[in-house]
């Protein structure tokens, strides 16, 4: 039987780990890292979330159907984000005749900021 429920020691250790990560993300936020700030803070948040899900929510000991239920939401969100991003990042590539300047403006601005003009 691989099912071993949470015990006080494990709970305490998890709590300490979570608070440590919180302090870390608060600390990192004081530095200017550009995109690194977003990566670090979101990365730490996802780590904290994963720890809560794995230990506190019992995914560590759960059956396959529970694990699938737990991950399917994230998987579908990934689909929403991926295909929408595919749309939004390529709008300025081939501006269609019916695309109005105001609609394209934020995207074009982004592109000009990101890539040096030749």
């Amino acid at each position, binding site marked *: 039987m691989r099912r071993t429920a949470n015990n006080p020691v494990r709970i305490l250790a998890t709590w300490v780990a979570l608070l440590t990560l919180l302090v870390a993300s608060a600390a990192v936020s004081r530095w200017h890292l550009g995109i690194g700030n977003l990566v670090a803070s979101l990365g730490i948040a996802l780590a904290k979330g994963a720890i809560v899900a794995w230990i506190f929510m019992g995914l560590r000991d759960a059956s396959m159907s529970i694990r699938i239920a737990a991950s399917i939401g994230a998987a579908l969100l990934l689909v929403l984000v991926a295909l929408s991003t595919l*749309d939004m990042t390529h709008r300025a590539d081939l501006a269609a005749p019916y695309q*109005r300047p105001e609609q394209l403006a934020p995207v074009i601005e982004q592109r000009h900021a990101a890539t040096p003009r030749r």
Partner: protein
Amino acid sequence: MIDGTEPSYLRDGLSLRSWLLSTDHKRIAILYALAITAFFFIGGAAATLIRIELATPAGDLVSDDAYNKLFTAHGVIMVWLFLIPSIPSVVGNFVLPLMIGARDLAFPRLNLLSWYLYVAGGLIILAALATGGVDTGWTFYTPYTTMFSNSSVVLTLVGIFVTGFSSILTGLNFIVTIHLLRVPGLGWFRLPLFVWSTYATSLILVLATPVLAITTVLLVAERLFQIGVFDPAHGGDPLLFQHLFWFYSHPAVYIMVLPAMGVVSEIIPCFASRSLFGYRFMAYAVLAIAGVGFLVWGHHMFVSGQSPLANLVFSLLSFIVAVPSAIKVFNWTATLYKGSIRFDAPMLYALGFVGLFTIGGLTGLFLASLALDVHLTDTYFVVAHFHYIMVGGAVMAFFGALHFWWPKVTGRLYPEGLARAAALIVFFGFNLTFFPQFLLGYQGMPRRYHAYPPEYTVLNVLSSAGASILAVGYLMPLAYFAWSLWRGARAADNPWQAAGLEWQTASPPPTHNFDAPPRAPEVPYDYPPRPAEQNA
């Protein structure tokens, strides 16, 4: 096997209170049936006015604003208050626990809550209609909805939000029921296809509807506070709305059609006396439709300003999603081969589904082709396409289900002659209504217009004439079903000699469904029935 001693679920408590507070899935199914019938006819009334207006080229029956409110009301009511709950909440609620040998759903009280949420949402939407209506179209596109419409938008969105939670809870209930309440020995690959379809539908209900919920919240916030999340002048993006809206609304059409496919998979083997062809592929196809159905929403946005690369990807994915549906059509057809076919009313509806869904599905491929879609989008071609699937498909399957399980639900037989006539009238009326619309769309008539150039008159008149015939076909069952409740012949346990656990109990069943837990069948579609099992 009718034991006269214990009461059926219909007689188990006769007060209004016993019905309105019942947690019995069978009674809740009937509560849903009554509510959706009412909404169907309200939505149908809107359609009637639309078709009367469109019988003449001039916009002479109603003003353009009023026309906008009519087609919006028709869309909102038919989608959220009729089609989405119809087969899952009526047929699924009644039949699913019986099919798996369970006493009830996993969460009976949640089931009752679902019904109340549905009715509350429906009443809120009706209130919106009564206080001036909504004129944005059921798609609520920004910026019209958020900045320019002077109608009861917020109230309608609140109503949709509430009914959405009814959907989510129903789907949740079904998923847990199917996973955990099957009678011992009933493995997944021994389940009827209706259970598989209901499961896939429930996955979509649970995962897609929350996105609609958030979208309505954002729309309401934008409309009330003008925050500009969909307004480029404020740093927002109108296509963000469309991505969010269609991410739900495309899978929503699979919510409407998958249960219908499940019903057809039950009816055809029974009335052809043949085991379903390609059972495993049918099951996998159902899951594939649900899964791939989440990947194609951008095909509603081909001309909205979506990037050409995304258009390409969505077009390709939309072609792919047609494949599992095609597999199902081939397998239903193969099931008929060498069968001994009975043309009872349920079978007429099921066969109608197969043909009309095929036409609807194929025309979807026309629309998935980018070059064609530029010409066909927002024309009557699109209107015809989705009505072929929703009405020619889903509504026909719903009627087929009503006829097929009517003896089980009510313990009465409906008059077969009238039922067959109604089925044929519906089929004829439907095609006369909607086939001309393919031609109208191809010739360029836009949708959502209350007046049109005179060149389109003939086809529009044909369409309106068809609608009047279709209406007759829909009203007939109302009459003869009601008649059968009082004067119909009593039904035996299994009048169709059908396989499936629901036919192993009385018609109508007792409240607790089965006197003893039924034995799981060795194979799912055990046709033709052996002589010993033919109905006593």
